[in-house]
């Protein structure tokens, strides 16, 4: 913005004005001062001349008698009067013959002895003015008066006056300069304001700024012009933005439905893939095609078709609204973006899905909404949707591949008989469908009494008897048979069913244990708590309610918790554990060694029992690493005052080794597989011989 010719000195407007003002003022004052001095000099000079001439005339007039009577004495007296005038340094009277008749002269000066002429004349000199005034009587010159006027007084006077004038001019200049500076400022302020405004506008592109009006006409006109210009620029800026927005809408949005178009969808997909890649997450895209839409277009016209497409768009948007969803994990589906690729093809992008079946849920919801009839010209039109699903990164790692595979999956769905959803990979379709089905069953399993408990005995090495059992859940599905807890427990944890299921397990285990006790078998029962149960603030109350209801003493119950659950929230965890321990409930840490237990942490936890994970037991006695680990765990537990249970004991050798290492309790198939409650009492009376050679020993 700032440009200037090379070589020119850049000054402010204020400085320039000030300089011009000073020069103008100086010149004007100089001229005025000179004029004053000159006019004053001429006035003073002329008045001196006039006064002197009058004086000469008066003297000449009065001298006539003296001359006539040749009275030098009276002439002398007359001339004495000049001494009252300091300017006059000499006066003389000359007779008819031009000879000096009388004179009065200031010391150091002189008058001529005779005159050349009696004519009236004035001689102008640099130092003196000489007046010759004839003395007239009866129209004749009877002599002349001569007056010598010294100019020194005049010069002195003039010098003082000039000095005064110069000083006055200087003071006037000073005062005017100050006044002008103030005036300049009042003019410059609005100009500087405009300049600052321009800078602001050019730096911030703020075309909404406006210049304030000024009380100076020209500046006001300038400000008005500037504001007009800004207004026009602003108007153009708005128009340009609107045009850009329109272009952008055209480029990125479908004009019929207002949904993003293919281009927009692909860009968004690309961005979400990057996010998923960084977070090691998953995302899914749904590719939807309306079944039989072509027929509607052909039979009812394109306008009807367009109307249908708009309604479909509305329904799609409704289907992805979080509050409309019967979702298990709404967070997974937030940020679903729809798009219309063209024709009757729509897509939905679901970022951050935990499981592929979550995408399937959205697809099902869409299908349900599409199945409702559309009212067109009082006719019911029923449309269905075929949806293909592609999952990142399983089905492709870039946007176009994913879209292509979702398209393929959609055709696959159409082949399956329309109104269908298909994943791109068949295994995913199957697995996702299974999990969905499983979840559906799980919701009813408790009510249908499909769960049961089995108990795996735990062998106490010190007593050589079974003294406790671990309760394990079984799900006997009427169609699919036994379903492993490994399959449905994570699902139950995911959808929160674990809480009622866990409570049922606890209640059932306590009931069984109480029944055993009544039959004379003192058996402690160990029940697993999932992290979700453990976090439930009702846990302690629930446990003691159940114990009270079943009549089981707390010390006969052992709760197994995982390292993860304990580590998660130390304060609440510690309080919960202490509440349980205080009443005598035993606490065991399950799967010890697989998590990230901190040793200092273990020390503070009110635990009774450590359960060594079966992976460590498996390699015994030959795996030296596992050997060392188990020995270390046992040594540590002994020091901390915990008992130790080894899981997954399958051979006599393992049992013997663990006995040698002073393990407290053993559990595993070597002793017994998990058994229904009714089969447990039969085991209790059995003797277990661990001293026999491994090859010959057989469980009794």
């Amino acid at each position: 913005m700032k440009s200037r010719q090379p070589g020119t000195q850049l000054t402010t407007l204020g400085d320039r004005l000030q300089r011009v003002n000073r020069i103008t003022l100086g010149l004007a004052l100089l001229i005025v001062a000179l004029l004053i001095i000159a006019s004053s000099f001429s006035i003073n000079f002329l008045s001196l001349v006039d006064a002197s001439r009058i004086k000469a005339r008066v003297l000449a007039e009065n001298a006539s008698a003296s001359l006539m009577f040749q009275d030098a004495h009276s002439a002398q007296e007359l001339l004495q009067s000049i001494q009252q005038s300091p300017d006059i340094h000499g006066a003389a009277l000359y007779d008819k013959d031009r000879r000096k008749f009388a004179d009065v002269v200031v010391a150091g000066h002189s008058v001529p002895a005779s005159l050349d002429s009696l004519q009236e004349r004035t001689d102008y000199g640099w130092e003196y003015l000489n007046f010759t005034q004839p003395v007239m009587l009866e129209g004749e010159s009877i002599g002349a008066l001569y007056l010598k006027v010294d100019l020194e007084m005049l010069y002195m006077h003039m010098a003082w006056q000039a000095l005064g004038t110069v000083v006055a001019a200087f003071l006037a200049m000073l005062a005017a300069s100050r006044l002008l500076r103030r005036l300049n400022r009042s003019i410059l302020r609005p100009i500087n304001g405009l300049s600052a405004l321009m800078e602001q506008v050019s730096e911030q592109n703020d075309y909404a700024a406006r210049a304030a009006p000024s009380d100076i006409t020209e500046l006001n006109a300038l400000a008005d012009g500037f504001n007009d210009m800004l207004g026009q620029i602003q108007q153009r800026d708005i128009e340009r933005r609107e045009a850009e927005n329109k272009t952008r809408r055209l480029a990125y949005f479908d004009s019929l439905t207002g949904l993003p178009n293919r281009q927009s969808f692909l860009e968004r997909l690309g961005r979400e893939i990057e996010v998923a890649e960084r977070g090691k997450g998953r995302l899914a895209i749904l590719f939807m095609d309306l079944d039989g839409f072509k027929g509607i277009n052909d039979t009812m016209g394109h306008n009807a078709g367009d109307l249908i497409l708009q309604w479909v768009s509305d329904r799609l948007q409704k289907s992805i609204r979080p509050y409309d969803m019967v979702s298990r994990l709404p967070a997974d589906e937030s940020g679903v973006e729809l798009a219309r690729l063209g024709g009757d093809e729509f897509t939905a992008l679901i970022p951050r899905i935990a499981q592929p079946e979550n995408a399937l849920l959205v697809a099902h919801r869409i299908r349900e909404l599409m199945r409702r009839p559309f009212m067109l010209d009082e006719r019911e039109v029923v449309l269905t949707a075929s949806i293909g699903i592609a999952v990142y990164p399983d089905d492709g790692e870039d946007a176009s591949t994913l879209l292509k595979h979702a398209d393929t999956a959609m055709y696959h769905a159409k082949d399956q008989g329309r109104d269908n959803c298909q994943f791109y990979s068949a295994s995913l379709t199957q697995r996702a469908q299974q999990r969905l089905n499983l979840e559906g069953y799980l919701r009813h399993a408790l009510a249908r009494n499909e769960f049961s408990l089995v108990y795996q005995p735990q062998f106490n090495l010190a007593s050589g008897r079974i003294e406790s059992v671990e309760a394990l859940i079984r799900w006997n599905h009427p169609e699919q048979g036994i379903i492993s807890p490994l399959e449905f427990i994570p699902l139950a944890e995911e959808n929160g069913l674990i809480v009622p299921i866990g409570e049922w397990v606890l209640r059932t285990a306590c009931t069984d244990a109480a029944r055993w006790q009544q039959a004379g078998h003192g058996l402690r029962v160990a029940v697993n708590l999932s992290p979700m149960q453990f976090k439930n603030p009702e846990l302690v109350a629930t446990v003691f309610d159940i114990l009270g209801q079943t009549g089981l003493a707390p010390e006969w119950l052992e709760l197994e918790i995982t390292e993860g659950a304990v580590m998660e929230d130390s304060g609440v965890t510690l309080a919960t554990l202490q509440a349980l321990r205080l009443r005598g409930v035993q606490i065991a840490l399950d799967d010890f060694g697989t998590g990230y237990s901190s040793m200092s942490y273990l020390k503070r936890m009110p635990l009774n029992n450590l359960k060594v994970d079966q992976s460590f037991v498996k390699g015994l006695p030959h795996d030296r690493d596992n050997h060392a680990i188990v020995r270390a765990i046992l040594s540590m537990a002994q020091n901390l005052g915990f008992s130790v249970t080894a899981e997954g004991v399958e051979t006599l050798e393992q049992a013997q080794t663990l006995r040698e290492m002073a393990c407290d309790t053993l559990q595993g198939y070597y002793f017994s597989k998990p058994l229904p409650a009714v089969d447990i009492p039969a085991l209790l009376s059995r003797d277990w011989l661990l001293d026999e050679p491994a090859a010959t020993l057989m469980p009794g």
Partner: protein
Amino acid sequence: MNRSKLKLILLLIICLALPGGHAFAQATPEYRAKAGFLYNFIAFTEWPSTVGSPLTLCVYGADPFGDELAALQGKSVGGRSLATQQVGSLEQLKNCQVVFIARSAINDLPRILNALKGAPVLTIADATGALDAGVSINMELRQSKIAFEVNLEAAHTAQINLSSKLLRLASRVRQ
């Protein structure tokens, strides 16, 4: 003062040395100077406007000026021409505006003044005591120098105005 005296002596010597135009009308240097004075007095005197031209200068008694007065004849003064006349009787004084009373007729002074009473006439004499007797201007010789004294009352009575310039030169002014 000494210088003035010398000048006058010098003037007198010059006058004596000058060859006379008319042998019988030769005036003394004193009267030659007094004749000049007469003119000067007239020049510094104003008459009432009723007085016309010519202005007649009359010498009463024996004329001591010789032909000096003839030089004044016709001379212009104050816009009027000057005329001279010798008078011997009181009747003749009627035409005079200036009357010089010669010493020879000084005894007639009271009568003359009486005759001129109220008339605009400048009376001049050169006799001791003449001023107090009632002439307007009286000339005298002081230290060989001609001086004059003025009687303002007399002038005032005669309705004539003597110039202040003249009064300044007077040796005595009688109010």
